């Protein structure tokens, strides 16, 4: 982490990430398309993350509800619990917690995988084998994270809401139908759509940072570990920055 304190290194890093991102943006839509690898990555990145994301989402929904209940009871608005939890989950908790867990799981695995491929010359081997490794490795993974995180976030929202429903029912009694209606009533498109859109950016950030860190890994096994670690740290910070930007932009556009 010491290197981050150095402003020069930091700026250099930002510049390189920007260049890397630009390269991705230029490369991704050009043939040839690594469809098979893309689907494989979608499976690994998306489907295989579901149990973890689901578990954390469920617990978040449950805990959030249980934590909010006492203050809601104090203000005498216990019946608004589903509405407030619904908004919290859909707007913020669902996307951000999912993205952070995703950064922890996928960011590190991409960083480590590409890092070790770099170190053991697998990336060179690909290039020699007539494959653009940037396309094969980076584009497929970044596209997969970009497209899979929103999917995971939606499922996490659903599971979180179910957790919240159980949380409401620990000390109260609400039918699933009433809970659902209360949640839906409290939501508008302005709650769902911006939250959904920002998850694409979260996914993109996790993918780009993981690939960048892995792709530019230093020689040696230590480099691989550092790449994996840095990928998670930078991606997590970036998620919060994007979240901040997202709320500013939606506010500016009047969709808040």
């Amino acid at each position, binding site marked *: 982490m010491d290197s981050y304190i150095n402003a020069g290194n930091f700026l250099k890093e930002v510049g390189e990430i920007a260049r890397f991102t630009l390269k991705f943006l230029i490369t991704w839509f050009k043939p040839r398309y690594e469809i098979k690898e893309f*689907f*494989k990555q979608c499976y690994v990145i*998306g*489907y295989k993350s579901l149990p973890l994301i689901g578990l954390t989402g469920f617990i978040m929904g449950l805990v959030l509800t249980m934590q909010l209940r006492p203050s809601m009871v104090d203000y005498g608005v216990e019946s608004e619990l589903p509405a407030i939890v619904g908004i919290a989950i859909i707007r913020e908790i669902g996307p951000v917690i999912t993205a952070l867990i995703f950064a922890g799981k996928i960011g590190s695995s991409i960083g480590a995988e590409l890092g070790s491929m770099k170190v053991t010359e697998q990336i060179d081997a690909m290039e020699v084998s007539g494959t653009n490794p940037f396309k094969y490795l980076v584009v497929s993974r970044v596209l997969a994270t970009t497209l899979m995180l*929103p*999917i995971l976030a*939606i*499922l996490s929202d659903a599971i979180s809401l179910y957790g919240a429903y159980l949380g409401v029912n620990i000390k109260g009694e609400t039918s699933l139908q009433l809970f659902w209606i209360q949640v839906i009533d409290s939501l*508008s498109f302005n709650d769902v759509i911006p939250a959904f859109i920002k998850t694409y950016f979260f996914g993109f950030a996790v993918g780009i940072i993981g690939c960048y860190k892995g792709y530019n890994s230093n020689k040696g096994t230590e480099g691989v570990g550092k790449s994996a670690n840095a990928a998670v740290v930078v991606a997590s910070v970036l998620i919060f920055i994007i979240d901040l930007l997202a709320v500013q932009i939606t506010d500016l556009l009047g969709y808040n």
Partner: protein
Amino acid sequence: MKNNSTDNIKLGVFVLGALFFLILLLYMIGKNSNMFGDNYILKTRFENVQGLKAGNNIRYAGIDIGTVKSVYFINDTMMEVKMVIDKKAKNIIKKNALVYIGTDGLVGNKLVNILAVKADAPYAVENDILPSKKPVDTDEMMRTLSKTNNQVSKIAEDFSITINKLNNSKGLWQLLNDHTIADNISNASIQVNKSSYKINEIANKINDIADVLKNGNGTLPKLINDKNLADSLTAAINNFKTAAYEITEAGKEINHSVALISKEVNDGKGSIHAILKDTSVTILLEKSMENIETGSKGFSDNMDALKHSFLFRGYFRRLEKRNKQ
């Protein structure tokens, strides 16, 4: 390769599951704002829409039947509100239904209420303009409320000053706290009770004596002629009279004091505290009590003297004997 295709199936289920939930969520929200399904449009006009916005609910008899689609100017004094109404309400809302803007709860969102009118009319159809009722202007309401509020606060202020003064009034608290006065008053009434009982008793006894005298048997008629006895009896009766008079006077005084207080309270002269603060009244009351006390004391003294008079000694003894029997 087989492995790969099952992976892709799982991936497909995964993605479709999420998309299903997203679409369901969006559909439900959309349905809530009547974006899908069979609707028709009704319009109404207001001079002031009080912040009504697209998306606000429309209620008929307390049931959500639609949402506001848009609010726009027609001219400088008129706003038109376009309402998307569920088709189900087609055979319910009539052309003469009144539309007014309300609020969900006290501080909730604005909403449009459609109020059915008793009079008969055809059902409203697409793009009909329903008559509107000038909305209850909450600003106006707030202004009135604030005026009322001011007055209430002024009254409350006066009241609090009065209470404060009462709190600080020494006289009242002295009166309320002074146990001696209360004790005195209660003692006095006991005395008055006793005295009147005794007066009754004495009167009975005097009656008895008079009976004896009338009948004229025994030594008593002789005794009557005894000048000493006659003198002492006269003195006793005089004393008795004085005592009775004093008691009556004391009672009058109390009555007077009480009447004074209640009169002044009734007349509303000055504030309550002033009366109660007035120590002279307290003094007056205390004085009256004293008088009653002295009065009854004098009376009982006289009675004792009467008992001890040798003339009546025999009589009292007999009386005691009779009581014993």
